[in-house]
């Protein structure tokens, strides 16, 4: 299962650091068959962290369209779910992520613990396998 990590613009990098922590030998996500992909065209699962800005909205859509079917999206952190302390009607921000692209699994936390991120990705893999079985 290949992951592509896409930070959605305005964020404090806390969630990105936790994603980086989740792929260290301490948690060793390769046990679950999870690897990072360098390009969205090679990926199965999209990890999105942070609050979406007006500038990053188009880029995020383009990244989402580049991921081949079947695909799953995981929203990581409070910012990706609801906007957190930044309200959604803030000027530079373009709403929450699920208003633009369909999100499969939400991982709460500010930032979430690496364990929560791994559980979220495992849940997305289960969903993805179900989806592939249906499409065949």
């Amino acid at each position, binding site marked *: 299962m290949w992951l592509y990590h896409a930070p959605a613009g305005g964020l404090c990098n806390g969630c990105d650091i936790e994603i980086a922590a989740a792929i260290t030998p301490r948690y060793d996500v390769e*046990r679950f068959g999870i690897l990072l992909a360098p390009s969205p065209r090679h990926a199965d699962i999209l990890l999105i962290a942070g609050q979406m800005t007006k500038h990053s909205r188009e880029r995020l859509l383009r990244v989402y369209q580049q991921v081949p079917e079947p695909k799953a999206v995981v929203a990581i952190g409070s910012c990706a779910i609801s*906007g957190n302390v930044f309200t959604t009607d803030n000027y530079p921000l373009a709403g929450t992520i699920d208003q633009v692209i369909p999100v499969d699994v*939400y*991982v709460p936390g500010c930032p979430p613990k690496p364990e*929560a991120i791994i559980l979220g990705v495992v849940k997305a893999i289960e969903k993805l396998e179900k989806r592939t079985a249906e499409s065949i």
Partner: protein
Amino acid sequence: MKSSIIKEALKYFTSPVTEAFPATKPYFPKKYRGPPVYDQDKCMGCMACAHVCPADAITVTEKDGKRALEVWYGKCTFCARCEEACPVDAIHLMEKYGIPSEDKFAFKSTVTHDMVKCKLCGKPIITVRHAEWIRKNLIEKMGDIVGPEEIDFFLTVCRECRHKIENIPELRKLLIRVLVKGEKT
């Protein structure tokens, strides 16, 4: 300090670094801030937590004479301001992490309270437990100036009814008594 670093380094030669994650309990450092959870037995519904919440993750809804407080972890910053502000230690940040879910409104903690209704107009004012708490504290701290009947009047009549013209002289008398006491001390 140095010996602890050496001990930590030696661990890597003796045992594997990788945690057997789903099988073992995750490690929580000291002062870890997890999701805040309400204690239904202690909470009195005073809304201090909702007032200080910087992300507006705590919402208050009043319906059918009941007040419900709800923390939504999808908006929470885990800053522990609610824990600081709570006068009765009813909300605590637990040592756990949010479980991922397909429904973003699945992660939350709620409490509900019965409310006191206004004697004159029947509008809900404050929760029953909050009224009890105020009564107890007032008698303890200002028992010599305020009588128990007056406290009952203030806790069972809503603000609009209290400010009506026929109730104002009583209010003024109490205010003068409190002010005189304040000047003396």
